[in-house]
């Protein structure tokens, strides 16, 4: 079943604007990750935030995590046309062992218009 649900499902903005995507989940997690997928390609890991962290930055990306609300947001600042892609949150609630069983949301399709 889908644990993470992204909002909005689709987002269209102008180049240079900021893009914000939200993710909600249902159970306790070890960490939450964001991935990017260009059309018809594999996923690329963007950023990971642990359950005891509230905010994390990486370049133009900023991720927040609110475990009390079971939600996360991904902010892409100063967007570029090359940021056009689908963005997925994935929650890691693996109980034990080395295998990380990620549960992916349904994704946000971001379109950045030049």
């Amino acid at each position: 079943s889908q644990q993470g649900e992204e909002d909005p499902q689709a987002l269209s903005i102008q180049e240079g604007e900021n893009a914000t995507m939200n993710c909600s989940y249902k159970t306790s997690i070890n960490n939450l990750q964001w991935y990017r997928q260009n059309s018809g390609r594999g996923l690329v890991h963007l950023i990971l935030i642990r359950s005891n962290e509230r905010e994390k930055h990486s370049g133009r990306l900023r991720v927040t995590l609110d475990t009390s609300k079971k939600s996360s947001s991904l902010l892409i600042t100063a967007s570029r046309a090359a940021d056009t892609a689908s963005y997925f949150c994935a929650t890691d609630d693996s109980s034990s062992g080395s295998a990380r069983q990620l549960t992916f949301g349904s994704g946000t399709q971001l379109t950045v218009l030049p």
Partner: protein
Amino acid sequence: SQTIHQWPATLVQPVGSPLSLECTVEGTSNPNLYWYRQAAGRGLQLLFYSVGIGQISSEVPQNLSASRPQDRQFILSSKKLLLSDSGFYLCACNDRGSYEQYFGPGTRLTVT
């Protein structure tokens, strides 16, 4: 860093035919391996994962199976395909002790 190869890139198969998708990994040893399926416009569903040679865990009951004959080789198979098996199949890996997963380019399977 890891590189994941998947083949074929696309496949069109009739209902009832067998399936074999292959995934190989470079740049790491003894990784955890994963098979995911993605329906059109949807997120990924974990199908199988493996923590070592011959060790396969299934997440979703189905007519698919997986095998890991070598450390860096992961195979997804079916004896008889169903229409519902159509989708985009992605292989992924991660190093032990690491949380992020690396994905292959995927195989688009259409069952007709």
